[in-house]
């Protein structure tokens, strides 16, 4: 069974999804960070494919993208790095997140095929329009067992949320507040109202909250009405700061601090 599907059958609350950029801080750090996150108890890992023009991302993730590209990261290199992970004891569900153009240039079918071969469970492509997905790519993603995640924001109409939910089969990514990644979202009454309003829609997919989740308090607040939350920029900042030798320990400590 798809690991993502299996995860959400097993676990319906406090799911922690951690994002990091492939090839950052060093080109070949991808797998060791993945392993450290699994060991630390992350439920799900989202690996960012770096892009030159990440419009939905704030400064922290922009910089990690730029650094990764300077390090030489490409879609092909990422698949090469992930080649044997499933044979080497990586069991955590993995999502690839990225912008559409590098995937299109790589070849969408080849991309799906490589995802299946390496054991990637799903994708988040924020600038893939819903109608294009439905018309062009849906059967392809299904053929290779890839689950698809769509974003929803506080401005998304209820009708549109239902449309997105009908086509998503991974989870629904609830963007906490209008903004790019890394914005300081304070988990105020507005956010709480939006999350409980979304809960009342009784979506078929699990929901994870992202953007501005950085610590135990925001994780707990975000998870109150949802299946869990996603941490990105705060984790990238940790990777920037932690010295390479102490990185695994720092990752363990970080994940534990979120859960505490």
């Amino acid at each position, binding site marked *: 069974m798809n690991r993502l599907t299996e995860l959400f059958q097993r676990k319906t609350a406090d799911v922690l999804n951690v994002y990091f950029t492939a090839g950052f801080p060093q080109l070949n750090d991808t797998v060791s960070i993945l392993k450290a996150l699994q060991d630390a108890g992350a439920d799900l890992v989202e690996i960012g494919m770096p892009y*030159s*023009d990440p*419009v939905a991302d704030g400064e922290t993730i922009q910089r990690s993208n730029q650094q990764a590209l300077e390090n030489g990261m490409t879609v092909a290199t990422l698949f090469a790095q992930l080649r044997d992970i499933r044979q080497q004891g990586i069991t955590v569900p993995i999502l690839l997140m990225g912008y559409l153009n*590098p995937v*299109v240039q790589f070849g969408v079918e080849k991309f799906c095929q490589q995802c299946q071969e390496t054991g990637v469970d799903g994708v988040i492509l*924020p600038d893939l329009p819903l109608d294009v997905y439905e018309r062009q790519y849906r059967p392809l993603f299904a053929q290779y067992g890839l689950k698809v995640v769509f974003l*929803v924001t506080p401005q*998304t109409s209820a009708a549109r949320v239902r449309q997105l939910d009908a086509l998503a089969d991974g989870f629904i990514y609830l*963007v906490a507040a*209008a903004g790019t990644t890394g914005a300081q979202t304070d988990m105020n009454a507005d956010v709480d109202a939006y999350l409980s309003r979304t809960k009342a829609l009784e979506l078929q997919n699990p929901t994870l909250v992202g953007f501005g989740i950085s610590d135990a308090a925001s994780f707990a607040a975000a998870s109150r009405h949802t299946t869990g939350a996603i941490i990105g920029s705060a984790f990238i900042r940790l990777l920037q700061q932690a010295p390479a030798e102490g990185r695994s320990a720092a990752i363990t400590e970080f994940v534990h601090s979120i859960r505490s």
Partner: protein
Amino acid sequence: MITDMPSPYQVDAHGYYGPFGGAYVPEMLYPNVEELRDNYLRITQEPEFQREFQQLLTDYVGRPTPLFLAKRLSAHYNTTIYLKREDLCHTGAHKINNTIGQILVAQRLGKKRIVAETGAGQHGVATATVCALMGLECIVYMGEIDIERQKPNVDRMRMLGAQVVPARSGSKTLKDATNEAMRHWISNPTDTHYIIGSVVGPHPYPDMVARFQAVISAETISQLLHQTGRATPDFMLACVGGGSNAAGAFYHYLDEPGVRLIAAEAAGQGVSSGHSAATTALGKPGILHGASTILMQTEDGQVTEPYSISAGLDYPGIGPQHAQLFATGRAEFLSITDRQALDASFQLSRLEGIIPALETGHALACLPLIGAKPDDVVVVCLSGRGDKDLATYTKHLEEYA
């Protein structure tokens, strides 16, 4: 001036020009883009909108702009050359045709704040101008490098009350200013309108901007008819950064196969020099700033950093309609180097007493390349004036002494 013409080169019901166009935006922008998509035709076709738009174009922008028979330039190239004088628009370029239109749309959508990107600063100035005129807050993103090389326009924007924010990401030019403006819009989804400066971005922007710029070819038709007895030229020349002045100059001629449409791209130091912005020569299909189009990119789909002496052409993509005009062969794309553009700008200055913008120099540089015959009629869209480029021109004065 805004008319509906069924045409294979115009946007279809789904927002595409053949395989190009669409709205490849993250969900955070979907409601904004949808609001615009669902309302722009209705709003711009209201008689009251049309009345205000036309009146501002006349009394504020100074339209119609003249169509000038350039006699000495014509004699030099042994053909008949007319200049469509967009340089005489208020603020010095065609950009204001679009910002007038969009500010009226923004008002009707109830927006309180305007965000824009700018390269040469012409679109930034045109946006700051209409914001001052209508009393709306104005934030303009501009690449840090462009802020350096287009200083007078930065000062003009500030004088007009706009906030100019340096874009420090990536190549620090127009592409990155566009990214920053989009991020700003993402963060301010309900009260802000994004006045994009060219025929780029997600549907409906390319179509909306082209419709506002279509006034250029609409006026050309009647002026040419009046001056020559024929409504269509043999050649229409325009430079292409994103492609808005070209889109406007081509608009009413798209379905007139007798009119050769010539688009000048910036080759920078040369198409194969590694320092170029010649999109169709160097690019391939992909997705940039919310549209499927042709863009300069690496094998891996990363957007390449372009180069041109002219900040307004220093962009790695072109609008989706231009991608379609290129792909179908309807328009011919010529690559013009920095040097050719400088030569053409100095030539126009000396032969006709008109100092053009560096961007426009690229369009003028096509004149010796198109093989125009003595009885051909050639129209050049003189997209802007050269005041903003004086510092660059001054550096080269000696060479043209």
